[in-house]
């Protein structure tokens, strides 16, 4: 099982993630060109990026200032979720073993802290989804599944690293959950990783260049 998830399935996961992402983006570009040319007509780089900038900087938008705790939690969640797997020492070692490539790594304690942050933030998001009525109202089973998909690689990775439970099984589970997440990105609402930039850019273009108003 370990050999399978570490070998062929890893290939599949990366191919599905990268290929799927390209396909989704290409299909959207095709649709926009064919059916909704407006979106392309009003693209404005200055206004679009200005809006993106405001929304990727913590407290850069009004709504973030209205809810400081959520803002901090969600930024930490996303930053740790993206950076930890890229700069984790163990992942780097795997890359080196397989491809003879390597790059910077975080110290292990930092990766450990960031992993815990993802897990805790995940719990916060879960509780918020169950408790806040405006969130619960629009929540379906898929939302819990998506959150689980996003947090599982960190939970299993944490347990595997500390070797508190059956190490080999946990490691296999960790790799598997990471692969599931990669494959889910292009085909679930986790695709906001790809589409955030486009939808925000378009709205920024409309507000900034046509409407002469701020959208943050």
């Amino acid at each position: 099982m370990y050999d399978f998830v570490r070998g062929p399935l890893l290939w599949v996961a990366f191919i599905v993630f990268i290929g799927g992402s390209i396909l989704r983006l290409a299909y959207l570009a095709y649709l926009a060109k064919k059916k909704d040319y407006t979106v392309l007509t009003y693209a404005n780089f200055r206004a679009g990026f200005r809006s993106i900038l405001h929304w990727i900087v913590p407290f850069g938008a009004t709504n973030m200032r209205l809810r400081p705790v959520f803002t901090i939690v969600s930024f930490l969640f996303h930053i740790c979720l993206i950076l930890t797997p890229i700069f984790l020492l163990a992942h780097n070692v795997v890359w080196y073993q397989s491809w003879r490539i390597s790059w910077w790594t975080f110290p292990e304690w930092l990766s450990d802290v960031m992993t815990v942050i993802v897990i805790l933030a995940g719990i916060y998001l879960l509780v918020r989804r169950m408790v806040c009525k405006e969130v619960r109202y629009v929540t379906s089973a898929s939302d819990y599944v998506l959150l689980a998909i996003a947090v599982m690689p960190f939970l299993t990775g944490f347990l595997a690293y500390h070797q508190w439970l059956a190490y080999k099984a946990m490691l296999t589970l960790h790799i598997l959950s990471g692969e599931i997440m990669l494959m889910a990105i292009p085909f679930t609402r986790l695709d906001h990783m790809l589409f955030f930039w486009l939808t925000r850019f378009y709205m920024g273009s409309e507000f900034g260049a046509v409407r002469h108003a701020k959208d943050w």
Partner: protein
Amino acid sequence: MSNLLPQKWDITDIGLEEGIKRLTPDKIRTSIKKVLESEGVARINAYVNTCIHCGLCAVACHVYLSNDCDPRFSPVGKVKNTLWEMIKHDGKVSPEFMKQAAEISYTECTLCKRCSMYCPFGIDMAYLISLVRRMCHLCGLVPQYLQDTANSHSVTMNQMWVKQDEWIDTLQWQEEEAQAEIPSLRIPLDKEGADVMYSVIGPEPKFLAQLINYAAIIFNVAGIDWTMPSFDGWDNSDMAMYSGDWEVMGRVKKAHFEAAMKLKVKKIVMGECGHAFRSVYDVGNRWLGWKMHPIPIVHAIQFYAELIRQGRLKIVRKIKEPVTFHDPCNIMRGRGLMDDARYVLQQICEDFREMYPTREHNYCCNAGGGVINCGPPWKKKRVESNKIKAEQMAATGAKIVVTPCHNCHSGIEDIIHYYKLPMKNVFLIELLVECIEIPEELKA
């Protein structure tokens, strides 16, 4: 089939009651599919698949805030109860569901786009709701009063069934009224080659004719070479845009632009209206294939600010009572005239007070977007769904609220009455004409 929501208000609208009788499963599905798979497919695809259901847009919506934060009135809640269900059931929804979708899209969302400023992804929920309206229109399921204005547009090219002789007669009447201030004043009709064509919305000659004479005074005092068309195209409003009848919207906008071109004017100045501005600035023109308006368009607020800055209007009096300002969505979030409006207000008011939140973030009036045009059956719901605006206005302690948009104006008027606010509701021009100097030579 999806479940229906409980009724919060008991409202009967003939347009919806009769419309639902004519629905067949086939008609519903064809209408939904046309929008889902063709007209709106690209953005629906991006928006609906990207929305992570975080609920952050809720706090942006005045309808949500005014209804005790009931999540069904949040922007995403309204999309859930309309589009998500239609997509989930592949367009196979019941006539009752469509009626509910019509009620949500026409009367619970003003398309003000405030939520797009609170959604981290910038999802254009107003656009999604306008697509739902489009589906309802294609089904023939539109609130009666709104449909009637759209019919009027289609038949008369204006919103209020105003006939040409009535229009010309009204202008002459207002010319006479204005002559009380400036005896030599004229409202020049069909003057070819004038600098400015002044256009208004249908309700001005119908209910608010005095605004035309105020504008005539401003034009005359400022010495502008201006004209108004005596023929179709004088009305810049466009309720068909909001009913979802985009074909009629295109015809109406074309008539308006063509009136200006026929008169060979350099630009169009339009009265204090928000939705009309939206329709010429970023909706109707797009339908007609123009990236921007084909002829320069100046909104009244921008026009007044220019005239004061250029010294063509001299301010000699100031309003003493405390004044506050309602930012209409279509010219603030829609055109960024926040500073021009405040410049004029600072010039003519001694005590100007901001609402909070303000500028782009000001709460909607809950009358625009065609909501007030759904007519009397919906009035109670409309006013109760904007308690937050009443609280916001009351907190300023102002005695006068300036609402430079017709739909906002009527909506705010209703809010003032319903919540018994000690305030007077005016258009900017009403204060401006009180404050400008009318040169002696014009009075002679």
